[in-house]
């Protein structure tokens, strides 16, 4: 029987920070389990930077200002006590990362450089060129190696074992061998990232962002908080969803439709392409819905035209963007416009965390941090530069919280985890032996299509009802799915099968949360309820899963300092 005091699931910024902090107690046996090799984690894709009010570039900046900006950006749905804790502790985290060897870009005084970002009233985003997440991820991996954290690379979490609201352990598969193992643990940190893949290709997320930890918590009885809040980025590359930086519009790029028209004049005549992200995203979708886009259905797109900037300016200011467009869309921006479409970017909602200082969930011993968790500091809309900050800071406190849990909790019951592992073994055997049924890829594609069309940037009750029915049908189809690979060893078809199950489970929660939030707030834009409604909806959604039944509850938002006001920029 595999036994650890603390198991961290996920090896991105949050997971490795948690593993690092848990492992600071040398009496504890700590493992970090990840379905991929640690440095492949999606934290590495974060480019822009990490917010902390260091005041290096603007001496008037302060954690208080960062606090206010974040609350306002969240459309007042964030819990203000948590946001205050977050912004107050961020400067210390940046110094700590510096001490771990993160290669930050520097200012002329040798201090960490900072730059302005959307929604921030001072330039407070620390960065390392355009590879901030990448270098932080690698530095944390190095620190974990130094601290002798035990890595279980390419191990896949199948489920958490919770009985009578008590955490006992978990079940995971060693992907390389195909063996399924029960684990006993005193505490676990779930840090498995977001689940933007409910939209499959229409996301900036990595291929494996399937919310495995979030689904495992949800299935184990921990509620999801605010799953309906999904952030979209206006300029994803059309065929892959890969992010194309906002710098394109910043440098003067045009958005044009099939008729060659700069359509932003219809939606934001003054700001044009420099209108806020949510507005630009909605405008692009309106053009496509009106039949003025190129292509059909999920493949539809508009164009971003940079040709008028000229070769010299493109080469000087946007060389990497040009490279991305060439590599991934086969287009040279100097000669041709590039097809783009909004792309799902970030999940504001996630595992309900009930204590922001320990990242504890309602089930003792289970902690959660990073995009998979909802603390909540992002509320209805996350500010750029706050996500990498979120992962390292709350990863740290989750590690400390789990360490404390492990010190006071005994090991759970072997029989329970063994029983759960047996269940998965037989499921794996069944799926390997199955030779016919519904193709997994078809289920996945149908899910993505219905989520994008009906629970995407625009939402309307009638359409979301259709989406809900379709997801229910797909959950039913899923029971009849087959994977087409009988092998034991490195069976990614089976891994994908479990991932799609997780996505379907979570997609249903997104739809339910969205249908029941009859207002527009932050990223959640309801065509049938265009106004924010504080009277009825200044509250967090909580969705519980009891067997196959989903139950909705609500939780008040913690407001300490900033009473809600109309959000204007």
């Amino acid at each position, binding site marked *: 029987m595999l036994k650890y005091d603390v198991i961290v699931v996920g090896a991105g910024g949050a997971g490795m920070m948690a593993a690092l902090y848990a492992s600071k107690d040398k009496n504890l046996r700590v493992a970090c389990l990840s379905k991929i090799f640690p440095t492949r984690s999606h934290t590495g894709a974060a480019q822009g930077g990490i917010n902390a009010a260091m005041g290096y570039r603007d001496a008037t900046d302060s954690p208080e200002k960062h606090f206010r900006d974040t609350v306002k950006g969240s459309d007042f749905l964030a819990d203000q006590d948590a946001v205050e804790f977050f912004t107050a502790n961020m400067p210390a985290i940046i110094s700590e990362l510096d001490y771990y*060897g993160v290669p930050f870009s520097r200012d002329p*005084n040798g201090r960490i450089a900072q730059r302005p970002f959307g929604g921030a009233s001072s330039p407070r985003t620390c960065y390392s060129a355009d590879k901030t997440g990448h270098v932080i991820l690698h530095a944390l991996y190095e620190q974990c190696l130094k601290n002798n954290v035990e890595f279980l690379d390419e191990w896949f979490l199948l489920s958490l074992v919770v009985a009578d609201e008590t955490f006992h352990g978990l079940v995971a598969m060693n992907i*390389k061998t195909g063996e399924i193992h029960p684990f006993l643990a005193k505490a676990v940190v779930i840090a498995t990232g977001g689940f933007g893949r409910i939209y499959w290709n229409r996301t900036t997320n990595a291929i494996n962002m399937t919310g495995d930890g979030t689904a495992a918590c949800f299935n184990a009885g921990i509620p999801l908080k605010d799953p309906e809040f999904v952030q979209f980025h206006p300029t994803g590359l059309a065929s892959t969803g890969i992010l194309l930086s906002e710098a394109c519009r910043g440098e003067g790029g045009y958005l044009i439709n099939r008729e060659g028209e700069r359509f932003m004049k219809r939606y934001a005549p003054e700001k044009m392409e420099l209108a806020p992200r949510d507005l630009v995203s909605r405008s692009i979708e309106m053009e496509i819905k009106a039949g003025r886009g190129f292509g059909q259905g999920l493949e539809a797109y508009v164009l971003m035209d940079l040709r008028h900037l000229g070769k010299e300016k493109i080469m000087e200011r946007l060389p990497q963007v040009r490279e991305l467009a060439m590599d991934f869309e086969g287009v040279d921006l100097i000669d041709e416009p590039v097809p783009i479409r909004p792309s799902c970017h970030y999940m504001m909602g996630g595992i309900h965390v009930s204590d922001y200082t320990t990242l504890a969930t309602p089930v003792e011993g289970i902690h959660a941090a990073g995009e998979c968790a909802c603390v909540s500091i992002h509320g209805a809309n996350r500010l750029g530069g706050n996500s990498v900050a979120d992962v390292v800071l709350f990863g740290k406190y989750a590690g400390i919280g789990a360490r404390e849990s492990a010190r006071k909790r005994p090991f759970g019951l072997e029989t329970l985890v063994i029983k759960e592992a047996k269940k998965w073994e037989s499921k794996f055997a069944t799926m390997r032996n199955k030779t016919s049924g519904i193709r997994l890829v078809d289920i996945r594609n149908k899910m993505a299509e219905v989520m994008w069309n009906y629970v995407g940037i625009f939402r309307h009750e009638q359409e979301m009802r259709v989406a809900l029915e379709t997801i229910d049908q797909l959950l039913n189809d899923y029971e009849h799915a087959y994977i087409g690979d009988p092998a034991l060893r490195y069976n990614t078809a089976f891994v994908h099968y479990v991932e799609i199950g997780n996505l379907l489970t979570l997609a249903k929660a997104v739809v339910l949360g969205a249908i029941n939030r009859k207002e527009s707030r932050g990223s959640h834009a309801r065509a049938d309820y265009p106004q924010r409604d504080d009277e009825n909806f200044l509250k967090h959604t909580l969705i519980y899963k009891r067997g196959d039944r989903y139950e909705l509850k609500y939780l008040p938002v913690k407001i300490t300092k900033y009473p809600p006001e109309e959000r204007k920029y």
Partner: protein
Amino acid sequence: MENITFRIRRYDGTNTWVQEYRLPYEKGKTILWALTKIKDEIDPTLNFTSACRHAICGSCGVKVNGHAFLACKTSLDKLLETFDTSVLYFEPLGNYDVVRDLVVDWKPKMEKMKKIKPWLLPSREGSIEEGFRQSKQQFAKISSSTDCILCGICASECGQLAINDGGYLEPFIINKAYRFAVDSRDNAPEEHIRPVLENELWKCIHCMQCVSKCPKEIPLTDEIAYLRKETMKMGEVHNQGARHAYAFYHDVKKWGRLNEMTLPIKTDGMVTTLRKRIPFAYRMIVKGKINPLRLPKAVKGIKGVRKIYQQVEEESKS
């Protein structure tokens, strides 16, 4: 061209075979697109790894027609044009243990990486509470080496790893050692450099494959040259590699050319040379490669050569 043929080396843990798939040609697609399409639509048993899809996570290194590429950012059009064929042969990265199909095992590489202490050994000038001061110039020194995404392409292409019995370090491990050795915040560069020296640093054969194939254009051979120089400054001048370098240095300074006769003696010492090199030297003489009877004479432009030496020495002093 209507179709592209993909011949993929398969492996299931026991057996190896080659399987052929065909996809209709589409303009502007990548290697990863093809692999994904094959898995989704033709054969779900095919295995490979990928994650971010935009060249930052390093998951999808793979060999096509004998050369390693990052699958997500390499266009099929480019490959078809370069190799002038519609048949592409896929294999897992070289110099790795294969798990299944195109999936390789990273675990042993990371165990090996620990040798060079791949973490910052912080100097006393900084603290966990305050961090460090580092100038823009000092940051610039670590900027390119910290671009490394651990995709393993350099290791797959490395000429020395291909023939080595396991002692030589993967180029990305050497890069990691360099990265900390030149970081102004690190207190003990020698602790990163010495293990590289002890693991056959001088065996790099300058094939330049790591540099030319690196998707992040990291100048790995320049880093190796730097590390070698540093080991000599550390007083490590009596090993084979350093002696070989000195022999080059002195020969060229003295005559403007190498003395093939004395080079092995200077590199390996008289005893080893007599013991191991005599038959080799004999073969060289027979083939006319060296002439033991010719006494070296300085080349015509030797003054110019020595001027270059002088200039370099002055520059490295300033």
